[in-house]
């Protein structure tokens, strides 16, 4: 028998973080080297280092090769990393707030809201004006739908995890119904709507990266700060309150933050499924159930996973691109079934 004093509380182990950083680095380098034009790893790494201050290394790539790295591939890989981190951390946060490991970032209607808003914009805007308004529409639609769920999600004068969850399901069905109706009435735009719904990083440029970067920084900071609070929330509203956590206010902050992260991801990438569930789940299976670990590792592994999924999306059937949502679902669904079948009862 071990002496009890030798038992330490659950903490984030350095090797898990190192593993996550390595995964992100691998995803980054692979994403930059693999493609229609294959580039040498050493050249890509040299090119990246040459852009860092105080390093002063010289890139061995030709000017066109360097342009492929910095103007075409880098923004797309970075956007993939950011979207993956946003979706995985938002999913982890929702799972904590709702004490349900099966909920995803689209739980409160973010996907349905964004889908409806994007459909409306695609239908009402002519081809000439293009799709410049789509990110804004998706962002507003996602947040609007979550706001609606929050607003109606009261039962018996209280806003409980269960009542919010049910409100999210109702709002999602309602908005999806409207979207389906609009789509049927305007069948000429179905293809464009579907291409958006299936998710894409195709058009990524530095503008998109700069668009979501602030949201990533803010939401990651807020969620990381709340990682122990999420562990306290795991004992339920009334007990968490008895332990000193102002539950209603904390839940509002966390839901708002995770929804902001989801809306930011959706606005630049469309609807990418499963990342928000499988990444936090995989982390949970590997390390345990503490959000002090799940939140930071979901950010790292979510980022790496989505960048790699995008690599598969653009290379597997090159020169054609598979929608990235198809790739994540194709990998995610079997993984999810595996999780269900191997988990102890009630855990998944």
């Amino acid at each position, binding site marked *: *028998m*071990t002496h*009890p*004093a030798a*038992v*330490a*509380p*659950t903490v984030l182990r350095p090797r898990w973080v190192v593993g996550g950083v390595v995964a992100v680095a691998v995803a980054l380098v692979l994403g930059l080297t693999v493609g229609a034009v294959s580039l040498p790893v050493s050249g890509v790494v040299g090119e990246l280092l040459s852009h860092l201050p105080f390093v002063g290394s010289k890139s061995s790539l030709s000017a066109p090769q360097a342009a492929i790295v910095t103007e075409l591939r880098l923004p797309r890989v970075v956007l993939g990393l950011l979207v993956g981190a946003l979706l995985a951390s938002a999913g982890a946060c929702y799972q904590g707030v709702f004490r349900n*490991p099966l909920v995803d970032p689209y739980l409160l209607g973010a996907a349905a809201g964004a889908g409806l808003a994007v459909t409306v914009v695609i239908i009402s805007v002519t081809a000439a004006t293009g799709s410049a308004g789509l990110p804004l529409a998706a962002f507003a639609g996602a947040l609007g739908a979550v706001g609606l769920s929050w607003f109606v999600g009261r039962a*018996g004068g209280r806003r409980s995890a269960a009542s919010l969850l049910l409100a999210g399901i109702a709002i999602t069905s309602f908005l999806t119904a409207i979207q389906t109706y609009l789509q049927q009435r305007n069948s000429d735009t179905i293809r464009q709507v579907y291409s958006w719904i299936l998710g894409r990083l195709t058009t990524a440029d530095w503008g998109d990266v700069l668009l979501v970067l602030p949201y990533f920084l803010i939401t990651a900071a807020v969620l990381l*700060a*709340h990682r*122990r*609070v999420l*562990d*306290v929330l*795991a*004992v*339920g509203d*009334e*007990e968490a*309150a*008895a*332990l*000193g*956590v*102002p*539950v209603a206010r904390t839940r509002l902050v966390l839901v708002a933050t995770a929804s902001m992260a989801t809306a930011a991801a959706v606005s630049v990438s469309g609807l990418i499924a499963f990342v928000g569930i499988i990444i936090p789940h995989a982390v949970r299976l590997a390390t*345990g*159930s*503490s959000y*002090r670990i799940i939140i930071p590792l979901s950010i790292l592994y979510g980022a790496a996973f989505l960048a790699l999924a995008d690599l598969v999306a653009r290379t597997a059937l090159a020169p054609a691109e598979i929608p990235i949502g198809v790739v994540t679902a194709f990998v995610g669904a079997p993984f999810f079934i595996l999780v269900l079948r191997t988990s102890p009862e*009630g*855990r998944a």
Partner: protein
Amino acid sequence: MAVLAAAGIVADLGGARILDGVDLTVASGGWVSIVGPNGAGKTTLVRVLAGALAPREGRVLVDGDDVRGLRTRERARRIALVPQTPVIPVGVSTLDYVLLGRTPHMPFFGSESSDDVGRAHGMLERLGVGALAGRSVESCSGGERQRVFLARALAQEAPILLLDEPTTALDIGHQQEVLDLVDGLRAEQGIAVVSTMHDLTLAGLYADELVLLGGGRIVERGPAEEVLTEETLRRHFGARVSVLPGAHGPVVVPHRAPGKAG
């Protein structure tokens, strides 16, 4: 001096009146046990005392401050609660679970210090479950769990301890163990204890004052000898019992229905 004082508590749940004018006070180092039939409002009263439920009328004072006026964190420093069936997070270790009790003493976004960890270990040792620190709470037996729940509440180091049915899931030996532990701590640290109990004999054995709730009102109160009478228990519980004088208080003995007994 009364550290916890409830006056004129009226509480509704789902439109039904559950408590209808309840007064209750506990002094430092005192133990008040709330007894009463199912549905009498015992758990609701505990929730009102804990500040988890706002009473429709009346107020609960903690050292003179209205419990509903206290910030959540300050309330958690003054009142610790063990609910009837605590939620056990999946996979949580016993040590991590007890450390949750240190939450009101940490910065909101902080994590536990080595001092907090030491106190949590100390509390587990104290309750005789120190060896379980690394085990998951789910893997503990009913008796072990009850002590782990108690350890978390005691880790809050609050001067008031509320226990909702702390012994219902336990066998008679573990019931005594848990109640002895609470009794020792209240004597030693002057903790004020309010508990709800189903076992009337045990309730009378440990509490200084029994409060008998019936239909949302206090129908009897006082030392066990005065509350636990055959007539009272027949009237409020519809129970056929004999109350025998025991060495440490009255002993409640149930009877079978007349005509069925051999």
